[in-house]
């Protein structure tokens, strides 16, 4: 017969002030002590652009980061719901598996890179290479995205409410992109396609989740023409 499992009484919210505690202490808590602690919400103060804040979470929890994050905020996230009340540096939510990451400000380069799942919402602009090599993540950007976004995107959806820069969707596989504003240029093998009913419903769903007030019919669909799927020895490096 199993004995009574000891439970440690803790408050439902835990606060980490990064002016006092290192990022490593925060992440060790999230990795090793969160599960079973009863903590449902973690608040992070004074992030001051530190790298690797809340990376590698593997448990449902709500996280509020009160300020600007550095590189790789919420990278590899699984299950958690993370909000950054500021801007983030390179690689926010990179390789995310599930859950939600919301950035209230702008995101620097490679936002959502290689993400497998979950939803990344950026309320401001995203810089270059947003969604590079995305593998199933949904990304919704309230502003514009920079050059080379969704490069080699394999799966998932990128919704851009503003304009897109040069080389959008270069060498796409099966990721699908939706752009409301102007597209400066499409990358190799990316093409505009008509919006289907399924596209409209999908975009409506993502816009609702993100809280952006746009009409899905305003968006253009961009997907792979699939002409690069097979090696063409006669292409002579002209794509």
């Amino acid at each position: 017969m199993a004995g009574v499992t000891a439970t440690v009484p803790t408050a439902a919210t835990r606060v980490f002030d990064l002016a006092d505690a290192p990022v490593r202490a925060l992440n060790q808590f999230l990795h090793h002590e969160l599960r079973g602690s009863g903590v449902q919400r973690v608040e992070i103060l004074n992030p001051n652009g530190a790298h690797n804040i809340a990376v590698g979470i593997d448990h449902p929890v709500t996280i509020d980061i009160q300020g600007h994050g550095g590189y790789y905020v919420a990278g590899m996230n699984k299950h958690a719901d993370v909000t950054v009340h500021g801007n983030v540096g390179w690689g926010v939510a990179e390789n995310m598996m599930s859950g939600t990451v919301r950035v209230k400000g702008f995101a620097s380069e490679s936002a959502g890179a290689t993400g497998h799942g979950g939803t990344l919402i950026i309320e401001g602009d995203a810089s270059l290479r947003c969604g590079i090599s995305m593998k199933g993540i949904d990304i919704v950007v309230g502003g514009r995205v920079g050059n080379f976004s969704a490069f080699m995107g394999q799966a998932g959806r990128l919704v851009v409410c503003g304009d897109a820069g040069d080389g959008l969707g270069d060498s796409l596989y099966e990721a699908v992109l939706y752009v409301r504003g102007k597209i400066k240029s499409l990358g190799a093998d990316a093409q505009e396609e008509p919006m289907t009913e399924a596209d409209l419903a999908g975009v409506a769903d993502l816009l609702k989740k993100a809280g952006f007030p746009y009409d899905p019919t305003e968006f253009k669909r961009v997907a792979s023409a699939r002409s690069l799927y097979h090696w063409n020895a006669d292409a002579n490096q002209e794509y």
Partner: protein
Amino acid sequence: MCGIVGLLIKNPAMRGQLGSLMVPMLAEMAARGPESAGLAVFTGELPEGDRKYSLYAPAWDYPWADFEAAFIKRFGVEAQIVVKGNHAVLTCDEPADVFKHWIKEAFPALHVLATGRVMDIYKDIGHPTDVAKRYDFSKLAGTHLIGHTRMATESAVTPDRAHPFTAGEDFCLVHNGSISNPYMIRRKLEHQGIRFETDNDTEAATRFLEWRTREGDSLEQALERGFKELDGFYTFLIGTENKLALVRDAFACKPAIVAETEDYVAIGSEFRALAHLPGIDHANLFEPMPEELHVWQV
């Protein structure tokens, strides 16, 4: 990887704090470049005929008094010399070509880091926080500065290959990235009689841009030309007697963020370099896009 920082003080009342505001910026960027550091600071302008020369000696306890005596003997005038260990800033009214020729002949071990009427340069190997302490960076005053923390990729770790690099007068540059065609640039400039002091790629970019400004380009035109001729990855931060300029290459492979308030313009490789600045919570924060020109006037 390398770190860059820059600060231009708009509010004249804060110009005495230029160094103390910058030191934490440099320290925070030490993680991007832990092996060398340096800065160029722009102070009050000397009269038209005067020049100051930032000098680097091979030893901390270099006999600067002997150097000063030799200067007086050669030129027959007193010189103002401010010594900080292995660095000294000498102010005199000797023209650059005469002074540089003499120092090369008489004191070949000394290295002239910078020439001008406004700019002083300090740079050395070592951890950036140690370099900052070594030369009392926190006490520096002036209108603007650029600084650098180095992690070498293209040439050896030596004081003369630390940044900022200079060319001509009151022109300096710090660089995060790597230039792919420095030898092509070098060969082109050497045909114009321009001499190089190191094998460093950043020196090629610095001398190219400064050469363009002497050929009649504005700083902005020189930078536009640089987009066409300088191949590689770069975030450049350039200081002149009255300007700071910031550009990123076409692929924006290296980072930069700007914070602007009524009091200052601050530039760093990453936000964490700027997080401590006063009023940062209300600053206009933005990242320059590829091949955008950002130029601020003092």
